[in-house]
């Protein structure tokens, strides 16, 4: 990355001082965390998930860093597995949602006023009811289950990104270099590929990543409310809603630790998205 001829200090060499370099490091660390999480979940044996009445209701200790629950299941295993499941559901939903927003945003900006009006009304419609009410409605329509949660989150989260993409394309259409290209007789497809896509892609990617925290939180919330997954397959929402039963009896670790790990994970996605923004944003390139 760096081409300096002078011997830089360690910090300079690692580019810790400038905004972009730091962002890149943060990015790598976040990715490492997610990789570690997924790898751990894959490697952990199922044995921590089976009931073990000899080791039940243990507070966090060396052997069980997250403690054990009422049936002696290892909360660390449950949390890690649950977290990956929640992440998976959130990511899937967010991805579907972003595809929807890309398609609708593009259509709305390119196909003329009528389409635009339809898409804008659709956006208004989705925004007309509180997210959670829509989520509940959709998962009710799907008869609950994981699919219900994914569809519900997917159909309720695309509006914001669709608006961004729509605005971006509308702006680009008026941009000078696009006008010039058009005058030069470039095909619309060429313009879309060479001019539009490079501008939209970073916006889209960042939008997608910033969608993850919302999607994950809403998926967890919906599961927490009791729509969706079976308690046999731990997800963070399930763990937290189960812990609600035990919180009054003083088994705090059942709620605190899984929730904290969800918070950290969601926060990291936020950091990831923002770092990516710093790196791709031309304004910060000199910082």
């Amino acid at each position, binding site marked *: 990355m760096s081409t300096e001829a002078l011997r830089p200090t360690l910090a300079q060499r690692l580019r810790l001082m400038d905004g972009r370099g730091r962002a890149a490091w943060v990015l790598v660390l976040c990715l490492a965390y997610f990789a570690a999480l997924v790898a751990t979940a894959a490697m952990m044996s199922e044995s921590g998930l089976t009931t073990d009445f000899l080791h039940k209701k243990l507070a966090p200790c060396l052997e069980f860093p997250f403690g054990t629950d009422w049936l002696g299941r290892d909360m660390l295993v449950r949390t890690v597995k649950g977290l990956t499941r929640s992440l998976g559901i959130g990511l899937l939903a967010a991805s579907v949602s972003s595809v929807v927003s890309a398609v609708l945003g593009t259509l709305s900006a390119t196909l003329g006023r009528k389409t635009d009006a339809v898409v804008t009304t659709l956006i208004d419609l989705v925004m*007309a009811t509180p997210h959670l009410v829509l989520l*509940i409605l959709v998962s*009710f329509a799907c008869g609950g289950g994981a699919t219900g949660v994914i569809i519900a989150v997917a159909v309720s989260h695309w509006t914001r990104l669709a608006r961004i993409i729509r605005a971006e394309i509308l702006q680009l259409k008026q941009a000078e270099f696009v006008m010039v290209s058009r005058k030069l007789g470039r095909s619309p497809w060429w313009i879309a590929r060479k001019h539009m896509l490079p501008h939209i892609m970073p916006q889209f990617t960042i939008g997608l990543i910033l969608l993850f925290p919302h999607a994950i939180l809403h998926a967890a919330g919906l599961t*927490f*409310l009791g729509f969706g997954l079976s308690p046999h397959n731990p997800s963070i929402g399930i763990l937290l809603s189960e812990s609600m039963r035990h919180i009054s009896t003083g088994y705090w670790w059942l709620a605190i630790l899984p929730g904290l790990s969800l918070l950290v994970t969601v926060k990291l996605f936020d950091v990831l998205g923002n770092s990516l923004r710093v790196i791709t944003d031309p304004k910060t390139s000199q910082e």
Partner: protein
Amino acid sequence: MHAISLRFCMGKAGRLALILSLVSVLAFTLVSLSPVDPVSAYIGIDRMQISAEQEQRIIDRWGLDRPAPERFFIWAGSVLRGDLGQSMIFNEPVTTVIGKRFVTSLWLMASAWLLSGVLGFVLGVVAGTRRNSLTDRIIRIYSYTLASTPSFWMGLVLLAVFSVALGWTPICCATPPGVSPDDATLWQRLHHLILPAATLSVIGVAQIALHTREKTIDAMNSEYALFAFAQGESRTGVAWRHAVRNVALPAVTLQFASLGELFGGSVLAEQVFSYPGLGKATVEAGIRGDVPLLLGITLFSAVFVFSGNFIADILYGVLDPRIRIGAEEAK
């Protein structure tokens, strides 16, 4: 107040009508898609008790044996007459359930709304006046972290600390056990409100704080602020005397515009604290398949969100002279 012209209101009313009808179509389509059989969805557990004639009467009344589009028009027709049907899990007309539950929720939402507004605003102004100071950093980290915090988990933590460990606050419900809502004293109600309201306000605080911070920074860099500095006023003085005035209305506007999130948040908060409000009713309706109630709540929440945005729009017009002047010129 010229912004609130007749035409503006008419336009908004039309918009509301359009949104409401679209929401009804959407909601009705969704519930018709669900695997629950419409007859049991309307009659539910009562099906075992009521006579065959009564059941038939209900089927005829709501056209439950007809295809979905036809059912929709029957339902929409009675909604227009103000009849949202009968909630099967509460055994009362949907309008009564929503009315009662909303009053309970209103306590919660209003206090959370105020709390998050005031707290977020103060934090935002403080952070904005001391940009890049330690205070600012702390407030920013705090706000960004709050934004990633699952509010229901926050509720659980508060519950574990204040209700279980310290025993300061009640663990559930809107009133003490055995006291019916009508007999509860103001103290009792507030006592039961503290934690749910604190949980619910968590969502709003971050947003308002960050927004206000940006606006305060802008205001502090504005010419009139510079002028005031030149006259020897302190930063704090400028902030509270000049900036606040300009920052407050946008914050209030934003608060109104986020009523939807407040409503959504109340669903989760009420679930954590078993607070018998509209949010809890929504979850119950969804889980136990109370279709009339679910539809009613959806419509109601749409009106609620719309009112928030409407007020925000008006405030925005009052606030921004360009819009006001534009509206006057348009006349």
